[in-house]
């Protein structure tokens, strides 16, 4: 895992604002991105994540604020003068050039000799697993190969930061999963800061050291994957990352460091302060992941148990998802159970007991 001491920032964003006419695309974005970090910008389409990435690359001018790259203010610095390189969503492979010419494109003005350039291109192609593809025509490549050429072409210039704009969205599912691990491995190998833009929360969780979740031009939460999943800062983040159940809850009062709440359908629970990111007062709701609720089978017992009726069963092979109507709660909660040997699958209308744990809860006001 990561060091306890944070790495020095390579990128500092200070109150970045962007307007397109009246449209407010970026609203006061401030963040520090560390040297050698795999950082993701995650959010639904139109949240401003691509605009922010393009602002860092220099393709978008910002309306206000500062972008510091390695301590240098980037205001007025054009994209070709910035120590960043980009992998485009469409990969932007030059169709009239060969693979090697594409990869070596950025070396045109470097001081390397022709021989050294050739070696560098060869090494870059090796690095992305395309050794020997140099003479191929660019338009004869498959999607995955284009992606690798785009990576090699960007990395050959040894940028301080590599920017990736939805690089995996054009690939099929299998290829995408393979490239996710490969990108992670590549990033560790070269030690360059990667900033990834994606709308796929799973992809962000798998690959990133830290993730900035963005909605409507703002960073809603910036945290490492585990924290983001376990302790979403807002209800919307919780909904966006994975699946989350919400139950109405009433705050009863504070007892020292603990907050006591009464959750509809479950009962009373005591929550720690870090489970209440938005404070604790009055009517609220608690968020609970499907896997933190457990169905009890055939006389199993637990410390806290709630009762309900099975409303819907969805069988996935390895897992079964149940919608359970808890007694005394509005709506249903989703519960996921691993299909272990000997464990039966309940049917609609069955009565069920659920074990729950207050440590998995997050309180939203």
């Amino acid at each position, binding site marked *: 895992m990561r060091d306890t001491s944070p790495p020095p920032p390579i990128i500092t964003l200070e109150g970045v604002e962007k307007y397109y006419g009246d449209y407010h695309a970026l609203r006061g974005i401030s963040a520090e991105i560390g040297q050698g970090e795999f950082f993701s910008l995650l959010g639904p389409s139109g949240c401003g994540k691509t605009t922010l990435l393009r602002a860092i690359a220099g393709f978008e001018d910002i309306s*206000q604020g500062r972008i510091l790259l390695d301590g240098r203010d980037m*205001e*007025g610095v054009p994209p070709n003068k910035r120590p960043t390189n980009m992998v485009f969503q469409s990969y932007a492979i030059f169709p009239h050039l060969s693979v090697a010419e594409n990869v070596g494109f950025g070396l045109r003005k470097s001081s390397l000799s022709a021989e050294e350039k050739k070696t560098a291109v060869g090494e870059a192609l090796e690095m992305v697993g395309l050794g020997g593809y140099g003479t191929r025509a660019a338009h004869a490549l498959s999607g995955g190969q284009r992606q690798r050429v785009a990576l090699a072409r960007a990395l050959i210039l040894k940028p301080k930061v590599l920017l990736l704009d939805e690089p995996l969205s054009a690939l099929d599912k299998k290829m995408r999963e393979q490239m996710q691990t490969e990108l992670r491995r590549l990033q560790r190998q070269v030690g360059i800061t990667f900033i990834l833009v994606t709308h796929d929360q799973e992809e962000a969780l798998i690959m990133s050291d830290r993730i900035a979740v963005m909605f409507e031009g703002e960073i809603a939460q910036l945290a490492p994957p585990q924290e983001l999943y376990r302790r979403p800062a807002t209800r919307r983040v919780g909904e966006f990352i994975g699946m989350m159940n919400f139950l109405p809850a009433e705050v009863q009062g504070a007892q020292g460091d603990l907050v006591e709440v009464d959750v509809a359908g479950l009962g009373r629970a005591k929550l720690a302060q870090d489970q209440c990111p938005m404070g604790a007062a009055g009517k609220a709701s608690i968020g609970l992941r499907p896997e933190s609720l457990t169905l009890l089978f055939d006389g199993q017992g637990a410390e806290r148990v709630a009762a309900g009726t099975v409303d819907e069963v969805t069988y996935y092979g390895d897992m079964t998802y149940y919608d359970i109507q808890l007694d005394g709660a509005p709506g249903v909660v989703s519960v996921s159970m691993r299909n272990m040997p000997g464990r039966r699958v309940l049917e609609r209308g069955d009565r069920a007991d659920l074990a729950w744990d207050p440590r998995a809860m997050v309180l939203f006001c």
Partner: protein
Amino acid sequence: MGLSTRLRRAARTESARGLALVSPPLFYALLMLAAPLGTILLFSFWTQDFLTIDRTFTLDNYREALSDPLYGELLFRSLRIAGAVTVVTVLLAFPIAYFVSFHVRPDRKSLWLFLITIPFWTSYLIRVFLWRVILAFDGPVNGTLMGLGIIDEPLSWILYNANAVVITLAHAFAPFAILPIFVSLERIDRSLLEAARDLGENRVMTFLRVTLPLAMPGVLAATLIVFIPTIGDYVTPRLVGGSGGTMIANMIQTQFMRLNNAPLGSTLAVIAMLSVTVISVALILLTRRWTRGPR
């Protein structure tokens, strides 16, 4: 943030760059199109006094153009002929566009379009002249028809009148009508037609209720793109129109080159343009109403 930074950011905006790029052709069009059209408009309010231009503002030209039955008749004949040309051209073109879009293999489509456009790129003058040869008294049309025994004596109604103008112009503007209709037909999602069939309509009704309404923008574009230039055609009426087929453009030319009356010529040009504009706008509005309005 400093002023210079703001200015630099403003200069790099999308709009500034776009306007800078478009300015050379825009200035050219302003200089060579807007300014001359403005000059014509000015001239139409002046009068010719033998060899000099009298620059006092007057509506005399318009009065003359509107009161003299000769000009009115020429204008109406031009509109009538252009209207007939447009109807004939678009009606003839639609099945071709439909055929290429729906019945030609996708990889053959561009070959068909290429074949259709080739004649259009060859010398207009020569094409029109050849129609005079084809339609002539002793031309191949009459020759073939008489040879087959269909007619006893040469048809006289096919040359040196409005019919000849319509035939020739329908030929000249064919690709202009076919291409827009083809494009709009190509844009129709084929599953819409399957959906209509699936919902119980037969071929003909599917065509009438789905294909035709969706192709209307193309038909409208074709109509305008044929109608507008046809009004101002000069060569065809002169070569095949005879005296009954002359149009407003011939009169405009006469005013400018023969009678040396530029102001009256300008007035006729302005009136012709105005009528074209009014008719075009009316057509656009009518089609909008028909395709989008309440049923």
